[in-house]
């Protein structure tokens, strides 16, 4: 999905500040959630090496000497009711994830493929990393496979754009250029050479679409294929909604989101 030689240019700082929270790959991999009170128990398959409470530090009072049945231990500790999540981690498993992921063949992977591989190595195992409650199945309803499926249905050359307004100020003006399923260029509405959008409306949406078409004809960027213009509230709701499509439909009905998907006929 991400071209190893991708170009990120003319990035307006406001857009970048608004989307920076999505960049950390850790949030899509880890079980521990921000602010969550957790207990992390590290073992080597035989012995408990250390137990760390995320709020109070190392715990010596838990009498966790023997490992025994891992699932039973996990349930017993969680049943104490002290923590929102309990993690039981085999140190050897983490070493194996590192060893397996750091191979020359991985150089062929794109950045997203690489971290998805780490995710799979970490979680597709037999008890190497257990937690209770289990790790979230997705990030706010978004999955890697879902995003890949979305990209796969786009035309071979496609521009995807997102405009988000906070009041009358542009909060996010993001443009992605894809070719062959890879993001080749990332830029912002700054590259459109026009004053920023100041409203979420049908007219503003059509204007944005036409600017993207003009850019395509002038600089040879791919034609627009998927564009979403919405308010900050609609964007935040969409991000976390269980039913993404329904959330956008509701936003459209209230005039806070406009979008268009121009897919190849075979997909339509």
């Amino acid at each position, binding site marked *: 999905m*991400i*071209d*190893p*030689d*991708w*170009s*990120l*240019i*003319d*990035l*307006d*700082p*406001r857009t*970048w*500040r608004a989307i*920076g*929270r999505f*960049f*950390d*790959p*850790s949030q899509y*991999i*880890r*079980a*521990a*959630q921000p602010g969550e009170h*957790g207990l*992390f128990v*590290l073992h080597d398959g035989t012995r408990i*090496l*250390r137990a*760390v*409470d*995320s709020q109070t*530090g*190392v715990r010596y009072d838990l009498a966790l000497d023997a490992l025994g049945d891992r699932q039973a231990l996990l349930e017993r500790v969680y049943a104490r009711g002290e923590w929102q999540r309990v993690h039981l*981690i085999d*140190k050897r498993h*983490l*070493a*194996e*994830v*590192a*060893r*397996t*992921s*750091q*191979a*020359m063949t*991985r*150089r062929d*992977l*794109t*950045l997203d493929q*690489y*971290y998805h591989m*780490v995710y799979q190595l*970490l979680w597709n195992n037999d008890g190497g*990393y257990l937690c209770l409650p289990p790790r979230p199945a997705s990030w706010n309803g978004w999955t890697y496979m879902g995003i890949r499926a979305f990209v796969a249905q786009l035309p071979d050359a496609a521009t995807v754009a997102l405009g988000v307004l906070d009041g009358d100020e542009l909060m996010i003006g993001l443009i992605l250029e894809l070719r062959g399923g890879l993001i080749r260029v*990332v830029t912002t509405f700054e590259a459109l050479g026009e004053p920023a959008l100041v409203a979420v409306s049908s007219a503003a949406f059509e204007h944005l679409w036409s600017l993207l078409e003009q850019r395509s004809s002038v600089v040879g960027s791919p034609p627009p294929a998927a564009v979403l213009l919405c308010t900050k509230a609609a964007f935040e709701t969409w991000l976390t909604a269980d039913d993404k499509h329904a959330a956008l439909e509701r936003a459209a009905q209230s005039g806070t989101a406009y979008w268009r998907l121009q897919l190849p006929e075979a997909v339509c």
Partner: protein
Amino acid sequence: MSVTLTSNSLAIDGREVPVYSGAVHYWRLERARWQLILDQVAALGFGMVETYIPWSIHETAPGDYDWGQHDQRKDVEAFMRLCEERGLWLMVRPGPLINAELTDFGLPEWVLLDPAVQSRTAVGSLHLDAAWGLHPPRPFPVPSYASEAFYRYVGGWYDAVCPIIARHLAPHGCIVAVQSDNETCYLFHDQTYATDYSDDSLALYRHFLAERHGDIAALNAAYGSQYSDFAEVEPPRDCAINLRADLAWHLDWVTYKEHQITWSVARCGGMLRERGIVGVPIFHDIAFQQRSPLDVARMEADPMIDWVGMNMYRNKEDYAHVVEQMRFLAGSTRLPFVPELGCGIWSHHPLTPTPAEQELITLGALMHGLKAFNLYMLVERERWQGSPITRHGTLRPEYAAFYRRLTTFLHNYQLWRFERDRAILVLRSYDVGRYAAAAATLNYAHADLYGLPRELFTTEIELDLTWDALAEADEHRDDTWFGVLRQSLRAGALDYDLADTHIGDEHLARYPLAFLQAVDFMELADQRRVLDYVEAGGTLVIGPGLPYADPTLKRPGLLHRLLSSPGTSVIGRGRLIWAEAAQLPALLDALAPPAEFRCDDPAIDLAVLRNAERILLFAANPTDTARTTSLSFNRRRRLRGSWGMSETLDGDGAVSLTIEPYGVRIWEVISGDDQ
């Protein structure tokens, strides 16, 4: 040398030139815009620029170089000439590693793919750079900085690039400093048992052991082992310290990693010198690390490295780190230098700095000792954002306005000539840092991605020490001796410098009063050095412990002979004071000269800078609320606003002031007599 370091600036043929520089990446900018962009740089008030010269961009196939013949943007010599035409000085950084958010970090692919070059991790894998916070668009195998094959490749690159640099060295040309490698530290995979276990690294490790111990019998005595040859010695691959006897083996590996980094930077520096890079300082930039495996004092003491700086990318919430880093550079280096001072940020950073944040961080650094800086990036380029000058040569007004004001202020006051009011040095125990490094575990790639608490990355060690070395090493804690000391200094509004026990004699001698963190152990040479300092007239306050041994706990120390319990001993012309943490506030009251200016709000950070009779007072509010406070001083004063407001404050003993959230104010202090 045509260009030399002073404590304030560069001296170019005897002329004082402050290092206020900005980064411009010529190869990423349209050739036709170079002149416009350099003119914009000069118009913003900068007299110096900096650029990498990236290996992989110029050596496009083994032995084939493009210096602009095929791609005009690669004509680095034309770029140098444009700098010279404009009177702009230039610092260059030819690698071999550069990062610069380039795919493969500026290293040619055929070099990376040579198995003889590649480093290996403790778990037997390659070391790919896509680990520990680095998220490049394509993983690459990290070179071993012990690889002889790597240095042969580097020699070829330097053979090609050094003649170009040499033709433009100051004073006749524009180049005033050259960097040796870049942020050398295993590409942030710097945990003790992470890497480098490649064959060449292990050979260097064994050579290091032979130099350190002299013969195998001495090593066996230290380790309690029975090796017949150094070639048999294997390094630790995780912390396995169960007994005191295990310490030496682990600490030798920790020390070897420090050695490997310094040796590598020095070797590249020597290779540059051999190829005609003479008459200008060779410098190195440390990413951010102040402890093992980075050894700033010893790196700067190496004859092949003239100058060591430390990069800084911080948001407003990191203000305390900015202050600490600057105190460390001021206390530890010849000319406090930030070779990459955040100006905008790389494209995968989670929080783009606002102009107000850049103002807070930059002024916060200046008020705590920053003398020389290079704004990275002054001119935007691909994979970067938030710079004052775009890649098209236009200004981002909201960012450019601050930098224009800044250069005006710096030059109007000649700020590089000002010195902070501080008489105190705080010394970290370098050995405490090594001990913590030896106790590391879970040094596996990607362990940083799992949201694990930091305490999980340390091994439980029970060696029956008198003082808790791991607690002292944890600078997040306020309940340690070191933590109490820093709180007490802050409470007293006392400014200070920071260094570690590897500090050189001359540096140490500048301070009449030093506070030294110590536990059971300290290198014997360092114990000797601080004792010399006391004998020469220094006052040294030490705690929580008084070392009775060397770091392996085998050889007896020197300092414990002088005191048997906390108290004071007069030694030579100075005093050694062993103090418990609870005694520190009172000791500071008794020993340190009182601060000339104080705020009744402890959240406000003050610094006083002097140049002869001229005094500048800085006040920073690193909080998210406006603070109104009383600033007190010892007599009638007028404070003429120099930054943040133009009005003059006038008071007899005190004035009231308000500072906006994350704001900085600067006043020129005018004595009552001058009114």
